[in-house]
């Protein structure tokens, strides 16, 4: 009985020692990969920062109003945000590749999913960046147009344009990421539809005389043009 227990314990110890000996070189490999990954990510960060400075990325963002938007949200400048993101994604990506060397069952599949997800993540980020640029630009255009046309509540109009474009951008980004696709699409459709319906009702009730006058003017001028064309026609 005692011999059996001792034998089993010895076998268990041997298996543990064998497993540890098998894992140790892989663990070292992973650590080396993590270190090399950090160096690569850091170099990439430095290169990207120089490139963005060269193409005046911050200046472009400032012009489009993205910098102000980020500073309002207490976030760093767009170039620093992008550089930081690239650094962490590169390092985490390489680290995960290193972890896959440990040969832990089930982990490989998740790492594969992560790598497949990366391009979609970058596309979503690009969509958000473009959306922020567009929202800043069009919100400012709406504000200037409203002030110069002496319209009431120019800020409200400008913010409405900004919110609409940001909502559209977020729904596009979420769709790209594949997160809560149905919810986002349904929510966006409801909000957009309600907004358009509200505007149509407001215009129809508040500006029905204006709408009638506009249509009458437009139709009568078209009729006039058609008549004029038929007068000139050699046929």
């Amino acid at each position, binding site marked *: 009985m005692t011999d059996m227990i001792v034998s089993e314990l010895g076998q268990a110890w041997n298996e543990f020692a064998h497993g540890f000996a098998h894992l140790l070189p892989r663990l070292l490999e992973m650590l080396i990969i993590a270190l090399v990954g950090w160096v690569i990510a850091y170099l990439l960060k430095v290169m990207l920062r120089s490139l963005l400075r060269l193409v005046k990325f911050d*200046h472009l963002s400032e012009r489009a109003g993205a910098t102000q938007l980020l500073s309002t949200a207490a976030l760093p400048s767009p170039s620093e945000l992008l550089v930081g993101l690239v650094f962490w994604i590169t390092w985490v990506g390489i680290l995960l590749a290193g972890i896959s060397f440990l040969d832990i069952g089930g982990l490989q599949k998740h790492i594969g999913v992560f790598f497949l997800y990366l391009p979609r993540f970058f596309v979503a980020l690009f969509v958000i960046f473009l959306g922020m640029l567009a929202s800043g630009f069009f919100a400012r255009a709406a*504000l*200037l147009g409203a*002030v*110069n046309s*002496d319209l009431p509540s120019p800020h409200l109009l400008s913010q409405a344009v900004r919110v609409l474009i940001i909502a559209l951008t977020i729904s596009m980004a979420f769709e790209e990421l594949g997160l809560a696709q149905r919810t986002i699409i349904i929510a966006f459709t409801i909000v957009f539809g309600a907004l358009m319906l509200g505007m149509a009702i407001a215009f129809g009730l508040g500006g029905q005389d204006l709408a009638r006058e506009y249509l009458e003017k437009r139709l009568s001028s078209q009729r006039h043009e058609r008549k004029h064309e038929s007068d000139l026609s050699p046929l």
Partner: protein
Amino acid sequence: MFCSGAKDLESVLKSIVSADTLSQLQYAASLDEAHFHLSEELWAKAVYEFASAYHRSAISRDHIIQALAPLYRGRAYTFVTENLNAAPDALGERIEALCVTFERFKPYLLELWSAPERGS
């Protein structure tokens, strides 16, 4: 339009004119109609800052031009109220004086023009 422009376009004007000019414009906008006055010096300074912002494309160039419209209205109002009963000769002198103010501020324009771009 000048008053609402100076108030509502604050976020846009911030990226075009200096803080000092902006505060002077906002002070002018806070005055009532009877006391409203946009001085030649402030107008010349603002125009040069707009020109510099246009040169370095601080924001979209179309937007810079559009943002100048309310200030132009303010200056036009001041000019009209100042010269409402002026004789043609006096009017010519006032225009000449405005030109001299623009000439006097030319070094300021040169300074703005050659200043290093923000953010670089």
